[in-house]
C-alpha cells in the first residue's frame, strides 16, 4: 500500500489554564525523534480558549509547525467540538502519525478522531519506536491486565495514532533559538456544535508530593506490620528527599490513601531508585514500577520481588530500616552536607 502522501508527525497539545501541559512537551520530544528518523515534520495542533501565547514554547520544544485553533467555546474539553475542528483539519492534511496524551481528555478525543479518520489507535502507549526500513510506528503498551507488553502496528491504515501515558517519556530541553512556523487557523464553531456545556469546576485536592514525580520512592507492603514501623518509611523518604508509596493491601487497610498505591490499579511510576520493604512483588504491583534501580528487602528468599530487584536483601523489615536509616544519616554527617543522590 502506498501511503507516501501521508506526511507529518502530529501532536495534539493539551493546555491547563492557558499553559501547555507536561505531557505535550513529552509528546513533542517523541514526535521530534520520529520526525527526524522519518524525515518528516513535527507539527503541533494547539486548541483552546486563550492559548496562542504558548506557540513559541512549542517550537522551542521541537515543533516545526504549530497550528492554533482558538475559540471562546473551548473553555473545556468537548469531544464533539474537538473532533469536528481537529478531525476535519487532520482529514485534509493526511497525517502520517498522531500522538495524543493518555489523559482524561486525550483518551476521549483520540478514539473520536480515529472514528472520524477511520484509523487505528493504540491506548496508553509506554514505548514508542519506528521500524527502520518501513517507518511503521510500533506502539507498545501493557496488556491483559498488565501481564504482558504488546507491540501494536497499523500497516494497512493511515494515520497511525496512539495515546501516550504521561510521565513516561522525558521532557525535551527548550531551545529558544529554534525556528518554527506558527499558523492561526479560523475556527467555525457555534454553541450548537458543542456536545456539552461547562457549568462549574470542582477543584481537586492537589497532592503535596505526587508519587509519579518522585525520583526516589520508598514503598512498603504487608510485610510491615505496625504503623510505627510504617513511620520509618517516612523517615527514610525524608532523608532521601523521596516519596512514600504502598501496595494495594496497605491502601485498603487505610494506612495510605489510594493516591499512594502503585500498580495496575494504582499509579505507574518511573523513579530513579525504588525501595520495596516487605513487598511480595505481585505482578499487579510490579507492573507499575519502572525503576532504574530497585532495592528489595524481604525475609523470604523466594519472594517474587527478588526476580526484578537489583539488590535483593534477605532481612526482616522490623530490623533493617532503622539500621539503614542510621547508616544513611551517618554517611550524611560524614559528608558534612546533604547526601547527594547522584541519581537525582
Amino acid at each position: 500500500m502506498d501511503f507516501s502522501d501521508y506526511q507529518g508527525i502530529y501532536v495534539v497539545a493539551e493546555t491547563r489554564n492557558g499553559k501547555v501541559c507536561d505531557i505535550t512537551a513529552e509528546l513533542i520530544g517523541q514526535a521530534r525523534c520520529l520526525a527526524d528518523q522519518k524525515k518528516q515534520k513535527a507539527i503541533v495542533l494547539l486548541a483552546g480558549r486563550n492559548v496562542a501565547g504558548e506557540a513559541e514554547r512549542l517550537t522551542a520544544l521541537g515543533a516545526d509547525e504549530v497550528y492554533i485553533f482558538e475559540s471562546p467555546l473551548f473553555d473545556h474539553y468537548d469531544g464533539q467540538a474537538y473532533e469536528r475542528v481537529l478531525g476535519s483539519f487532520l482529514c485534509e492534511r493526511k497525517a502520517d502519525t498522531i500522538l495524543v496524551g493518555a489523559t482524561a481528555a486525550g483518551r476521549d478525543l483520540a478514539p473520536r478522531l480515529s472514528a472520524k479518520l477511520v484509523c487505528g489507535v493504540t491506548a496508553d502507549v509506554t514505548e514508542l519506536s519506528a521500524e527502520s526500513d518501513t517507518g511503521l510506528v510500533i506502539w507498545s503498551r501493557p496488556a491483559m491486565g498488565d501481564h504482558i507488553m504488546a507491540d501494536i502496528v497499523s500497516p494497512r491504515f493511515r494515520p497511525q495514532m496512539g495515546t501516550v501515558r504521561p510521565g513516561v517519556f522525558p521532557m525535551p530541553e527548550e531551545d529558544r533559538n529554534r525556528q518554527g512556523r506558527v499558523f492561526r487557523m479560523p475556527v467555525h464553531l457555534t454553541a450548537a456544535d458543542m456536545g456539552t456545556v461547562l457549568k462549574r469546576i470542582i477543584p481537586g485536592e492537589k497532592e503535596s508530593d505526587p508519587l509519579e514525580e518522585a525520583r526516589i520512592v520508598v514503598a512498603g507492603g504487608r510485610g510491615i506490620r505496625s504503623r510505627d514501623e510504617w513511620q520509618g518509611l517516612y523517615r527514610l523518604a525524608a532523608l532521601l528527599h523521596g516519596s512514600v508509596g504502598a501496595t494495594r493491601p496497605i491502601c485498603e487497610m487505610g494506612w495510605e490513601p489510594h493516591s499512594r498505591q502503585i500498580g495496575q490499579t494504582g499509579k505507574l511510576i518511573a523513579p530513579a531508585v525504588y525501595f520495596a520493604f516487605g513487598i511480595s512483588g505481585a505482578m499487579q504491583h510490579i507492573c507499575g514500577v519502572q525503576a532504574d534501580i530497585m532495592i528489595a528487602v524481604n525475609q523470604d528468599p523466594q519472594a517474587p520481588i527478588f526476580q526484578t530487584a537489583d539488590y535483593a536483601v534477605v532481612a526482616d523489615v522490623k530490623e533493617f530500616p532503622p539500621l539503614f536509616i542510621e547508616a544513611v544519616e551517618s554517611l550524611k554527617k560524614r559528608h558534612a552536607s546533604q547526601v547527594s543522590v547522584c541519581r537525582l
Partner: protein
Amino acid sequence: MRFLVCIKQVVDTSKMEVDPSTGRLNRSKANSIMNPYDRHALEEAFRLRDQNGGTVTVMTMGPPQAEAVLLEAVSMGADDIYLITDRAFGGADTLATSYTLAQAVRKLEPFDMIFCGQESIDSNTAQVGPQLASMLGIPDVSAVTALALTGRTAEITRQMEEESEVLTAELPLLATVAPSLNHPRYPSIQGLQKKWTVKAQILTAADLQADPGRIGIQGSPTQVKRVRPVAPPKKENLVIQETKTADSVRVLMQALQKAQVF
C-alpha cells in the same frame, strides 16, 4: 425513555498468572466474566429507567457463548438483549467493534441514552464508547462519576487530571461509566427466573448490512505484532543475605555507593 447498554464478555485478567521464568501467560484459572465496569453501566441505566420509566436494551458483540453475560444482565433487570455474533466479526479491534455496534444501534434506534463501561479489563482501551458516539454523531462524556437527568438534560460530572468538571448535555448522549458512579445491584429472584426463559435475539453481519471492509480483521487497523513478558530484565544480581542485619545494611550501603546512588 429507551436506554441502551453495551457490555462485553472478558477473560478475568486478575486471575491470570505469569510464569516468572518463561514470561508465559497462564490463563487456565481465568474464567470468562462480564466486564466489571459494565455492571456499573447497567446499574445506571436501570436506575434511570426506574426513575423515568422506559426500557433497558443490552447488547454485546462476541462469540455465541457471550450470551451468558446478556442473560446475567437479564437477571439484574434488562428488558431486551441482543447478541451480535458472526464469524465475520472475529478479530475485531476497537474500531471494527465500534462500527459493528454502531450498525446495530442504527437497526434498533432510537435510544435516548447509551451507556458503556469506562473500559474493559482485557483491553483497557476505553475507546469503544467515544468511537461509537462519534460514529453515531452524538456527544459523549467519558468516565462519568455523577449523573442526574432532568427531562432531556443530563448533568454530568467527570474527573479530569486534577479537578472535576460538571457539564450539562442534551439527550441523546453516550456516557462511559466510572466505577465510583454507583453500586451495581445483585440479580433479583424474578430476574433469575426470567433468565431461564429468555434467549438473546441474534444479529448477524447480514442483519446489520455491515460493510465487509469495516468488520472483523479486515476492518481492524491495529494488529498485534508481538507480545512479550512485562518483567524488566534484571540489571544487577546482588543478593545480600548476611546473618546479622547490621552486616546486610553495610553491604548494601557499599553497593549503593558503588552504584552511585549515594
